[in-house]
């Protein structure tokens, strides 16, 4: 036996199998032509979708900020600067730190000041805000709660901030003094002078600072840790923290701001915070109705999506099963019936799930019934087609065997056909159940119920990306669980089947 090929041997083989070794023009140019075609198509599509212009107009810095919002939150202390250079501090209405935050990364020095201008109108003077006498450093009481910063004009005496330090991280810090803001970031120091309604940097601006027009707002970007805006009448700091804020308890909950050990202690053996119910039920209630995360609503919608996929696929399976026997030409020997059923399947399948979803949303109103019906209609078509094809491919000998002993037509199907196809049928139904869990999300967004619509609404606000992330994580978990269950069941079914 010759193991090494030499030239004569090769030529001998080439002579014998000329057809195989000859390289035709078609074979030679097939691949380059295909590549050329794809490239030409890409260029044409680039023009058709005007991808270039869309990409150049896109706002990529927003993209980064949106992505960061998936897993982080911002706290926004806002310093309003008065005419005399003193400041008032305000955390905004929906601050994740609650109504009266005193974070340790904001340090202020306060002072009691007589208001220069009297209160407008004859409003009765409200008592001065209780500030600690000579209170330096972070005051226990808020320096200026959200509401009072605008209405405090009525107060005769007001607590104002004369010096503040905002620490972002070890390398980033802002120091606010009357008429001056000093910023340390990455070892560089920027001094901004605030005077006469203008914000002017002292010296040149570093790369991380930007000012569109002289004297106007200066935007300082500190990368992932946050950013700030400095203008003559206010300084807005935006400090970014990793994580989801107030995931369990919102700021109105009595459990808000307590460490987990304390919360667990309260639930297990604490005194009742609300005399009407136990701490456990109060905590559960607070979690379910968390205003920011809306856990109960999200879970309900998620369950709707699961139910839509489950019930839709199950009913599709039940209807497709008998119809497939009618459609299979080796079982029902009537061309008319076969064709009618098959075209019916084609119709159900080809009218898109979207059309069915929009249609049933009109019929039943938004909600899971619409999505369920859409999945049911589409999948009756798809499963019916697959089932009838499986039936047409069965081994006929088993049926013949059962028929030869004189079994009734029903018994022939039961013992001659069903054992062959049941594993295939069940496996396909499981596969569609799993894939419908995914598509139920999409049709939900057009109004057919489930988490899709909630997800879509959260996306369209462009500011609730943390909620989007939460729902996506839940959906991924559900899909993975169903994926695992369905593929485990399918492997068992297929391995047990004789085929």
């Amino acid at each position: 036996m010759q193991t090494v090929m030499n030239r004569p041997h090769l030529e001998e083989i080439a002579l014998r199998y000329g057809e195989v070794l000859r390289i035709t023009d078609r074979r030679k140019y097939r691949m380059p032509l295909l590549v050329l075609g794809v490239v030409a198509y890409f260029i044409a599509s680039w023009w058709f979708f005007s991808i270039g212009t869309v990409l150049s107009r896109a706002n990529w810095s927003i993209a980064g900020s949106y992505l960061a919002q998936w897993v982080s939150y911002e706290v926004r202390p806002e310093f309003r600067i008065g005419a005399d250079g003193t400041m008032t501090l305000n955390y905004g209405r929906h601050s994740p730190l609650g109504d009266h935050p005193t974070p340790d990364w904001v340090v202020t020095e306060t002072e009691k000041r007589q208001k220069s201008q009297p209160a407008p109108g004859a409003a009765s003077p409200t008592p001065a805000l209780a500030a600690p006498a000579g209170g330096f450093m972070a005051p226990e009481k808020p320096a200026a709660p959200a509401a009072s910063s605008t209405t405090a004009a009525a107060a005769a005496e007001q607590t104002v901030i004369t010096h503040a330090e905002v620490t972002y991280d070890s390398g980033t810090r802002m120091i606010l003094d009357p008429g001056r803001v000093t910023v340390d970031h990455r070892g560089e120091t920027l001094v901004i002078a605030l005077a006469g309604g203008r914000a002017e940097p002292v010296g040149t601006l570093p790369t991380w600072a930007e000012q569109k027009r002289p004297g106007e707002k200066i935007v300082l970007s500190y990368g992932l840790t946050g950013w700030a805006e400095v203008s003559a009448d206010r300084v807005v700091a935006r400090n970014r923290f990793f994580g989801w804020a107030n995931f369990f308890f919102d700021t109105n909950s009595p459990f808000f701001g307590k460490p987990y050990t304390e919360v667990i202690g309260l639930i297990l053996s604490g005194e009742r915070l609300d005399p009407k119910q136990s701490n456990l039920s109060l905590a559960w209630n607070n979690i379910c109705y968390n205003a920011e995360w809306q856990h109960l609503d999200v879970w309900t919608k998620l369950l709707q999506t699961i139910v839509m996929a489950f019930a839709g696929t199950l009913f599709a399976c039940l209807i497709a099963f008998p119809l497939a026997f009618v459609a299979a030409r080796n079982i029902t020997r009537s061309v008319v019936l076969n064709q009618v059923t098959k075209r019916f399947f084609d119709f159900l399948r080809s009218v898109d799930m979207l059309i069915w979803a929009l249609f049933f949303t009109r019929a039943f109103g938004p909600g899971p019934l619409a999505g369920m019906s859409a999945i049911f209609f589409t999948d009756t078509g798809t499963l019916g087609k697959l089932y009838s094809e499986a039936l047409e491919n069965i081994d006929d000998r088993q049926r013949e065997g059962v028929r030869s002993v004189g079994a009734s037509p029903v018994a022939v199907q039961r013992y001659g056909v069903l054992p062959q196809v049941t594993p295939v049928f069940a496996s396909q139904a499981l596969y569609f159940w799993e894939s419908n869990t995914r598509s139920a999300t999409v049709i939900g967004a057009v109004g057919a119920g489930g988490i899709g619509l909630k997800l879509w609404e959260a996306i369209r606000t462009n500011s609730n990306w943390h909620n989007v992330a939460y729902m996506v994580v839940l959906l991924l978990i559900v899909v993975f669980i169903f994926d695992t269950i369905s593929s485990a069941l399918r492997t068992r079914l297929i391995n047990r089947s004789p085929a």
Partner: protein
Amino acid sequence: MTDRQPLNSRLSERGADVERHWAELASRRRMYSLLGLFALLGATAGSLWFANETNAGKFFDRLPYFFDFFRDFVPKDGFEIFRALFDLPSPYDNGSFEYNYPEGRHYLTQDVYLPEYFFKMIETLNIALFSTVISAIVAFFLAFFAARNLMPNSWVRNAVRRLFEVLRAFPEVVVAGFFLAILSLGPLPAIAAVSLHTVGALGKLFFEVIENADMKAEEGLRAAGANWIERVWFGIVPQVLPNLASYALLRLEINVRASTIIGAVGGGGIGELLRLSISQNHEAKTLAIVLLLLLTIIAVDQLSAWLRERLVGAQAFRTA
């Protein structure tokens, strides 16, 4: 089955033992089946109750009005559908959006125009085609790193597989919505959403095909001293290419539907028009779009089935 008793009496003692054991197993099996059936029934009843309870309209309340929808969508006359489809002026035109068919025309030259719905349908089809081609290429290159027989390093293999899984499971709406926020309205968000999902879906199918490839050719090349790229390109790719192309075509069918749906939630194309015209009760427009969609989907399915049959023969076509 009914004559088991006389049979049993004729059996030897060991035979009767076996028979009894069999009966025991059978009854246990029947019990499990029954339990499973009850669980399924319970789950179904619970699901239906829950769906009905959380729906805006209740099933039995809404059922009498079910066919109102059809009555709302009866066109003024049969030709109205075709006028809407081909952007011909309507005799019922009263200046409202319902009958302004000619305004959607896309003029290619002075007098040759493409009707609006055809243009949008082409856009949707092109979204599907573009996404499929681009993701098939990406998935093709990634799939070799996920196949057990070509990538011995389990870290790389599992990383690529997890990537496919996440891309597959990630909701398309979210991708579309995210890119919609950045890129503003247009087909690109739909392309991004459909492509990312398709990379995951095709990647999985592709690496499974590659794992089932015959390794003899690759072994021969390895013996001749070929490097990894040569082995893959000359040993594996020629065998798997027809199957991969067939899967890509199957995916194209799915993507035509997917891009229609994504279009309806803001990705442009025909899906958006359909959603608008249904919500505004434009009967002729809706029917025209539904007709066009139906015909297009049937045509794409037939074309793809024919191509797949040519590529891999009749057998692979069954596993659709």
